[in-house]
C-alpha cells in the first residue's frame, strides 16, 4: 500500500483538523495515523493516509488540500511517503 503524508503547519485556530478530515472523508481517503504538536503557537500536524480508494488522482487532492489550507490560513502539503522513508531509513 502506497501511503501519503499530509502535513499542516500554521497559526493554531479552531477547526483545522475538522476541516481537513471532512475533506478527506468526502474523498474516501483513509487516515492511518495522526500526530500533532504545537511549537511556539504554531500548529504542526502530520497525517499518514491511504488514498487508494479515492476517485481523485493524487495531484488533484494535493491541489485541493493546498486550497483548503489557504482558506483557513495554514500551509497544507501532500507528499508521497517514499521521500521521508528514503531520507530517514537505510
Amino acid at each position, binding site marked *: 500500500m502506497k501511503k501519503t503524508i499530509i502535513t499542516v503547519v500554521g497559526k493554531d485556530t479552531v477547526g483545522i483538523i475538522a476541516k481537513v478530515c471532512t475533506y478527506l472523508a468526502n474523498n474516501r481517503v483513509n487516515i492511518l495515523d495522526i500526530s500533532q504538536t504545537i511549537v511556539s503557537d504554531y500548529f*504542526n500536524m*502530520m497525517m499518514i493516509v491511504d488514498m487508494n480508494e479515492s476517485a481523485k488522482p*493524487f495531484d488533484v487532492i*494535493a491541489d485541493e488540500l493546498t486550497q483548503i489550507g489557504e482558506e483557513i490560513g495554514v500551509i497544507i502539503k501532500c*507528499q508521497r511517503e*517514499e*521521500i*521521508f522513508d528514503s*531520507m530517514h531509513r537505510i
Partner: protein
Amino acid sequence: MINIYEVAETNQMIEKENLDVRTITLGISLLDCIDTDLEKLKSNIYNKITSVAKDLVKTGKEIEKKYAIPIVNKRISITPIALIGASACKTSDDYASIAMTLDEAAKEVGVNFIGGYSALVSKGMTVSDELLIRSIPKALASTDRVCSSINVGSTKTGINMDAVKLMGQIIKETAVYTADRDSLGCAKLVVLCNAPDDNPFMAGAFHGVTEADAIINVGVSGPGVVKTALEKVRGENFEVLCETIKKTAFKVTRVGQLVAKEASEKLGIPFGIIDLSLAPTPAVGDSVADILHEIGVEYPGAPGTTAALALLNDQVKKGGVMASSYVGGLSGAFIPVSEDQGMINAVEVGALTIEKLEAMTCVCSVGLDMIAVPGDVKDTTLSGIIADEMAIGMINQKTTAVRIIPVIGKKVGDIVEFGGLLGYAPIMAVNSFACDEFVNRGGRIPAPIHSFKN
C-alpha cells in the same frame, strides 16, 4: 513508521534550506543520427532529441509534485557534436548550424540547457574537431540554451597544448561575439581535463560514447542543508564536524536517488548515476562559501580554506556514496564565483583571488568556474590559466575545468550581471606577467608518470 519530527526535518530542508534536486539530465546518444548530408543529419538530430526527451519536463514536474521537492533544471546531454558532424560538416558554419538545430530541439522539449556541443581533443585534433572549436563563438552567440565543452587533456594522454592555445583565442572571441550581453557566451563554454562521460552538470555535460543509447543522470544539491547542520555543531572537533557533513550528505543524496529511480521508471530510460556535487546558487543560504565560513574560516580564501574544502568534499562523497547505487559525474563541491553569494562577498572584500581559487581546485571539483576577468586580458594569458588548471587535473587524476569570462569593456572592480542561476560577479584581477613564449611552443605535454608520487 515515519514520525512527525522526521517529516518536519525533511520539509524544513526543502522550505528553509534550499534542498533541491539540481538537475535531471537525460543523456542521449546521437551516434545513430550520423549522415553525410548536413540537412539530413540535422533533421535526424532534431527528431531523435524531440522524441526521446518529449516527456522529460512533464515527468520532472510530476515528480516535483509527488514529493513536493523542487527539481530546478531539466537538461539534455548529447554525444559530442564534433563526432556526429564529422562527415557532414565541411566548414565551421556547418557546425554552427547544428548548434541552432540543438537550440530549437531544446526549446521544443522545454529543457533549460543542452550540453554536448563538444570535442574531445586530449591528445590531438582532427580537422572536424578544429572546425567545431572554431565555430564555438558563433554557435554560442546565436543560440540560447546550447552549452559547449572541450576536453583538452587527461591523465592518460597528457595535455594538448595546441588545443589549449586555441581555446584561449576561442574564449576571447566568444566574449567579443557576445559583448552586448556582458560576454555571456563564455558562461556556456568550459575547457576540461579528464572530462567524465556522465556529468549531468552544465556547461560541461556531454553524453560519452561509452554510454548507452539514453540514460538518466541526476545532480543533487543542498549547501544550505549542510550549512544549517553545521550550525548545530559549532566549536566541536573535526570528528563531529565530519560525521555531521557525512550524515547530511547521505540524506540529501537519498532524495536524489529516489528522484532518479522514479524518473528512470516513468520515462522507461535506465538510471545512470547520481552526481554528488554540492552545487551552490546565487540564492542567499545556498552557498558553499557559507559552509567554509561555518567550518571556521572568516572568508573563503583565508588560510585554512583549502583544508576546509578538502574535508568538506571528502565527507560529502563518503556520505553520498552509501546513499546511491551508482555514483559518477563530477561529484565534489563546486566553487563557482558568480553563482555563490559567499564567494562574491569574499572577492569583494579582497579575501579571494584567482590564485587561491586555483589552489582550492586541487582538492575539490571542478575548477576555475564562472570567474569574470577584464575584457582586455591577453589570449595567451587565458591559455596559461587553462594550462595550469589542466596540469592540476592531469597530475592528480581528477577532473578540472576552466570557465572564465573575459568581459569586454569591463575592468577590475566592475560588476557584471549574468542573470538567473549564473548570478553576478565582480571582475577579478589576473596576473599580468606574460606567458606567450610558453603557450606558443605548440605540441603536447606528455602524460605524467604514475609512480614516485610526491
